[in-house]
């Protein structure tokens, strides 16, 4: 008796959490399908939206690809190659990683200003590509890949790139997928960077643009909200397993 009560209490907590996670999505879906025409209106009446959607997607794709490349290279170097002062380098990267965005914003602004990159997409892309996040994750991931795998590939005469992309990245797939997914989401939700680095409001990516719609554009914001959700949700569906495994891998040490 006591057991069943506890079981049902546990179940209801779980279902409550599921409802909380699913609720907003259902609300958006409901809002959209109570006005099916809105889908077309979003695209036809506001070509601006369509332009922003693909533009933001392109920026995020470049950021994710760049960050992935930099992280896989850096992670492999830290995990498997002798580097002078490795402990210090790792510590320094961790410190930079933990600094809140608002602290790194002013340094980025100053250097982008010197380079004349403010008000261009590169201001959004470059600092994000060189974030130490992925390097740390890939370092932890590659550490778990046995040395023998690498040695075997090298005896077979594999070059650095072949070693990295044909052996190591597939072996550390879950880590790489976690970096891909989390970097994309972060870029897709970017808010502070465009607000600070871009002075022209019309160049803002989708994330900030949508928020500026506010209550006025409410009927269309359902549809634009749902559409802007799609890329991230699709990526999550594609890489869910890897994300969960990646989480486990990082903790194993």
């Amino acid at each position, binding site marked *: 008796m006591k057991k069943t009560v506890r*079981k049902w209490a*546990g*179940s209801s907590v*779980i279902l409550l*959490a*599921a409802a909380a*996670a*699913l609720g*907003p*999505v259902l609300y958006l879906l409901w809002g959209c399908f109570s006005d099916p025409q809105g889908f077309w209106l979003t695209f036809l009446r506001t070509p601006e939206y369509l332009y922003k959607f693909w533009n933001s997607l392109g920026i995020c794709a470049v950021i994710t690809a760049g960050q992935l490349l*930099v992280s896989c*290279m*850096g992670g492999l*170097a*830290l995990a498997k*190659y*002798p*580097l002078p002062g490795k402990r210090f*380098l790792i510590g320094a*990267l*961790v*410190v*930079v990683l*933990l*600094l*809140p*965005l*608002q*602290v*790194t*914003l*002013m*340094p980025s602004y*100053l*250097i982008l200003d010197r380079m004349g990159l403010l008000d261009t997409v590169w201001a959004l892309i470059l*600092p994000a590509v*060189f974030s*130490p996040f992925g390097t740390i994750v890939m370092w932890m991931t590659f550490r778990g890949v046995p040395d023998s795998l690498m040695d075997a590939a090298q005896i077979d005469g594999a070059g*650095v790139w072949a070693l990295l992309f044909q052996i190591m990245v597939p072996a550390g797939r879950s880590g790489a997928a976690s970096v891909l*997914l989390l970097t994309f989401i972060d870029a*897709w*939700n970017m*808010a*502070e960077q465009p607000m600070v680095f871009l002075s022209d409001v019309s160049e803002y990516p*989708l994330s900030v643009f*949508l*928020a500026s*719609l506010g209550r006025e554009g*409410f009927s269309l*914001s359902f549809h634009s*909200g*749902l559409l*802007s959700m799609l890329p*991230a*949700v699709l990526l*999550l569906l594609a890489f869910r397993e890897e*994300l969960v495994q990646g*989480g*486990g891998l990082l*903790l194993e040490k």
Partner: protein
Amino acid sequence: MQRLKKNGPIWMNEKKKRLLSLRGRRQLVGGFLFVPILLGTVVFFAMPFCMVIGYSFGLGGGQVRFAGFANYLKVLGSESFRLAAGNTVKFLVLGVPLLLVLGLTLALLLSRALPGSRLCGNTILLPLVLPIASIVMVVEWMIPVSVLESPAAFRVLLALYLWKNGGYITVLLLAGLSLIPRELYDTAAIEGAGSAAKLRYITLPLLTPSLTFCAVLGVINSFKSYREAFLLGGNYPHESIYLLQHFLNNNFENLNYTRLAVASVLTALPVVVATVGLLLWQRRRA
């Protein structure tokens, strides 16, 4: 071509080639792989951060008069900085422990395969990927403006933070739980340990690395709550959710570089001290 690579570049003399042993070559390759992130961090962070420190002492943007700590005293004395710092610390101190408790509770329940745990496992990561703009839309629908303009705004922001990050923390802790050997629990059960004792003496100690990792993630993400706060309240939200990030952002808009630099350094300082301390402590323990 292949031969050339094996024997080292052609411009090296015999002695150098011999010195370039296997270890040396590995060092070169490692260096090559590490260059992008190193350069990126130095160019986009380390170097300009030194400039920021310069600004904070009055040594930037044309001024060259060393101002000592005068700027620091001015910012530390300002009402808005204290409000922002206080709110940010309050958010961290409340948010991170609550997040860990929430994640641990859900992970423990999910690990028991109760009815509904499949559904929960499949949906729980959704909040992580929903664009903030969509979330804010839902919040604006659910919660009246009057609440967002009252001290309760702080609780709304806290709830959003827990809702958004709870899922990922749960998944991470669930992965950590699955690494604990089952036999430990079986042995404990034979010895007559109840579930509270199992939690206290088996689960929590063995889960410490996972919990530490989650706490670090929680801290990183609590700083990202500014996005929600901004989208809900704009540049000047209710004072209960006026965070350090608002302070920094507003000084950006006023182009007040000195105040901005001081606030950046003051925000970075505790983070750097805590991280370095944690790393050194971990190293001594290892």
